[in-house]
């Protein structure tokens, strides 16, 4: 980041949502350069839900990894509530949930859910209380003393979400959290996640492959396309919050599905996947 950018307080103070400005990500391997992200701009208001969707290599995961401070962009700026990803991470403002419900196999569910609080040095009693609250919220009551290896994939993902919730993150960054689950379970967890989002008022940025998941879980779907990775279209989903599974029967749902399918087909060019 250049010093000039860092010295622009108005830019940083403005939004308490997620703000992505001219973010570029170029990988250099020898003489070859790959542009993973070319000048991306995106504003996500606080409390709203946004999905990134697109073919592999479109940079949607890279964007999420930039926001979660795993990688640094080549240029441009990503802000969460006016903080850089590094600052936001230090203040534990966001939580990351990845596709493979990462669990520490030697910890029981309760201890796995407590992990973030333990790292943050929250006192034991408080830790226990908040972990139990989160476990209740994701519907894992009764499995606190189980080891992750004793859980199904869906239950592990619930535990991973519970761990993310314990820190009461303002921003929930999810990278295909239900990608490894079957269709029915994914559907159920989608609506459970909606209920949790209503309860916690968190801002959601979700990377997904599924068109219906993107519609169910978003106020806005951002379509990205590869080579170079960029944002090609933003489609508003005007179902409002407090959604029920009935929205899938809404005629608008079908229209959005086909609109998104076209946008995705377009963004992939003539390639077949």
């Amino acid at each position, binding site marked *: 980041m250049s010093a000039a950018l860092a010295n622009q307080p108005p830019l940083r103070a403005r939004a308490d949502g997620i703000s992505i400005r001219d973010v570029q990500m170029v990988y250099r391997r020898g003489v070859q350069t790959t542009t993973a992200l070319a000048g991306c701009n995106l504003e996500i208001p606080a409390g709203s839900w946004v999905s990134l969707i697109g073919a592999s290599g479109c940079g949607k995961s890279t964007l999420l990894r930039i926001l979660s401070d*795993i990688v640094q962009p080549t240029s441009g700026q990503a802000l969460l509530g006016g903080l850089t990803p590094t600052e936001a*991470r230090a203040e*534990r403002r966001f939580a990351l949930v990845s596709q493979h419900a*990462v669990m*520490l196999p030697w910890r029981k569910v309760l201890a796995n859910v407590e992990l973030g609080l333990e790292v943050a040095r929250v006192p034991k009693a408080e830790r226990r209380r908040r972990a139990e609250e989160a476990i209740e919220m994701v519907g894992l009551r009764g499995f606190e003393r189980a080891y992750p290896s004793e859980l199904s994939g869906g239950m592990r993902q619930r535990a991973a979400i519970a761990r993310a919730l314990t820190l009461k993150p303002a921003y929930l960054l999810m990278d295909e959290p239900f990608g490894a689950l079957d269709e029915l379970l994914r559907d159920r967890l989608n609506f459970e996640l909606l209920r949790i989002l209503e309860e916690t008022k968190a801002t959601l940025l979700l990377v997904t492959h599924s068109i219906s998941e993107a519609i169910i879980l978003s106020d806005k779907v951002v379509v990205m396309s590869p080579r170079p990775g960029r944002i090609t279209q933003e489609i508003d989903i005007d179902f409002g919050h407090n959604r029920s599974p009935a929205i899938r029967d809404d005629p608008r749902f079908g229209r959005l599905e086909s609109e998104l399918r076209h946008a995705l087909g377009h963004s992939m060019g003539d390639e077949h996947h």
Partner: protein
Amino acid sequence: MSRAWRIGGPTGVLLSLLALWALVTGLGWVDPLVLPSPVAVFGVFWNQPWLMATNAGITATEAIIGLILGNACGLLLAIIFVSSASGRRAVLPLAMAAQAVPIVAVTPALIIGFGDGMEPKILVATFLVFFPMLVNGMRGLRSADAEVGELMHSLDASAWQRLWMVRLPAALPFIFTALKFSACSSFVAAIVAEWVAANKGLGYLIVFAGSQYRSDEVWAAVLIGTLSSMILVGLVVLLERRVMPWANDPTEGLT
């Protein structure tokens, strides 16, 4: 596999071997100087229980102290090596070279330096078990998934927290592999070191009794040495089950 077979099977094999041993020696097929009858060997325990117990105790003490020291050093160095690239580059080649030293051949020099007490034997045992722990420990400490690393990063965990919460628990299966291996080899190391110069211990007993053709005592010493190191391995396995309750069957990787 039923519980009865798990206990009965090995017991049956053991009893058959004992019967074979009694048969072979009873029929005079083997020179009793090479292999005395089981009655003669077990007679040693009956007639001189203190001789066997005290010498086995000495060897076990050397082996266990060596085991603890060597593994502690190995694990500590493994932690330093995976945490600091410069430390690894500076010391790892030396540690590899140390492994190539035929330590048994150095034992006479150690005995000149430290006398014929327990110290040189402990040192040999320490030296022999150190390297397997270093290598296994380094692999184990690095064995956690990259995704776990990213999770800890996103939680803003410190290097200590990562070591304590992720790296060490992830390394436990590797650490116990090294421990099980070294529980046996530390006994071998102590006994071999005792051969060179000692006035007590199982190695001393084997050499001394052997020079007087008392092969019943030699075999009794071998038996009690085997038994002691098996007990030590068994204790390590028990410890493993206690420390790693999430792993289903720790005996699967016994070797």
